[in-house]
């Protein structure tokens, strides 16, 4: 790991850190600075590590970089006319064979399931904003 030695988090492979950075940028509503990415990752990484990862991803064409003040802000590159979640969903469900689908993180919920889940969340002491809304 050439640039991971100064990272506070040495338990995790470099690839996972890079993936985390991309996830943070996609989850954010607007472009982020290196410092904001570092904070969003919970301060697990040194600032220099985050900057190196961001620069590499920009060079690779995964991120767009714009000048903001004295530094840069980063956001994920995406083709507006390209693949979307909705199109992917349609594409992957073309095969009508039941059971022959990729295992998803979460499967569909019945109305019963939703109630049970909300109850479980409440009992876990995790009263969330989604529940109120």
């Amino acid at each position, binding site marked *: 790991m050439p640039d991971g030695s100064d990272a506070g988090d040495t338990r995790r492979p*470099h*690839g*996972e850190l*890079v*993936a*985390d*950075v*991309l*996830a*943070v940028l*996609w*989850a954010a*509503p607007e472009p982020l600075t290196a410092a904001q990415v570092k904070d*969003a*990752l*919970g301060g697990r990484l040194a600032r220099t590590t985050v900057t190196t990862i961001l620069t590499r*991803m920009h060079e690779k064409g*995964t991120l767009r970089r714009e000048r903001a003040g004295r530094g840069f802000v980063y956001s*994920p*590159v*995406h083709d507006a006319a*390209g*693949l*979307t*979640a*909705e*199109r*992917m*969903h349609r*594409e*992957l469900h*073309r*095969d009508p*064979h039941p*059971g*022959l*689908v*990729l*295992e*998803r*993180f*979460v*499967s*569909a*919920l*019945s*109305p*019963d*399931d*939703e109630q*049970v*889940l*909300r109850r*479980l*969340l409440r*009992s*876990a002491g*995790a009263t*969330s904003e*989604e529940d109120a809304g």
Partner: protein
Amino acid sequence: MNLLVVLLVVVALVWPWAAVPAARRLAGLLPPKAAALTLAGSAVLLAGSTVWALGGLVAGGLLHLQLLAEDGGVAKSWAADGSPVTLAVAGAGLAVLLVVLGLMVRLWRRQRALLERTWRTVEGQPDAADLVVVPGGAPDAFALPGHRGRPGRIVVTAGMLRGLDAPARDVLLAHERAHLAGRHHLLARTVQLASAAHPAVRALAPELSFQLERWADEDAAAAVGDRKLAATAVARAALAASSAQRRPSLLPAIGTGPVPRRVGALLGPAPGLPRGRGLRAAAGALLAVVALSSVLSSGSAYGLHEYVERVQEIVGR
């Protein structure tokens, strides 16, 4: 072919209907990884027994045909006695065997086609290391197994990433990485293929897919060091996905689905091997029920052996 052999073969072919519920019960007593391996092993064993029993019938028929073709007077007349039944049974066995084989090949091709189509679909998406992000609001996430030398990827939609906070995203990524690292898709594909051999085995596939999710959930919980955090992440993701694509008419409304069971399990005590003599005895008994299928199907091999001996005896006389 004597009556006992035919009876054994019939019992061997019917047995999976008894063995599959036993395998599911057994899986319920075990921690997720052991449960998944037990289910996959049971499916392979039951499918193998079915094919073996059918193969025994076909082999018996072939032996019989050879006997009929030979010029030995006594052997031929003895063989000719039971000819119509033996040959009809062998013919039926062969037909079923061919159907099973055909179904397996077709299923295998469809599995490959789905993988290839998924890879083609997500190709060229913004990626970083093992993560591929698909733009769009519909929350979705899955582990895409490696294919043609490309290592496996985690495919997540932007909608899913936005619906989760940073710790929950960690759980999601750890969960999908557990699927890839454990090569869970191989177990899933194997059980799907085994389902083609016997209709009873089909009931193992949903149970396996549940245990694979549990396995990945527990691995993710271990990775983030917090089972309650893992539970809330799974619950939040499911609720986000469910409110985004409401199609109530398509959803089964009865009973509790797999997601609440997963969340409940994560909120409960960490899984372990069954404790106490009673539970262990129950697990042993259930294992015996599953394993008995291989004994029964080997009955056809035993019968074949008897048959050959009998023929040798007659011919040698």
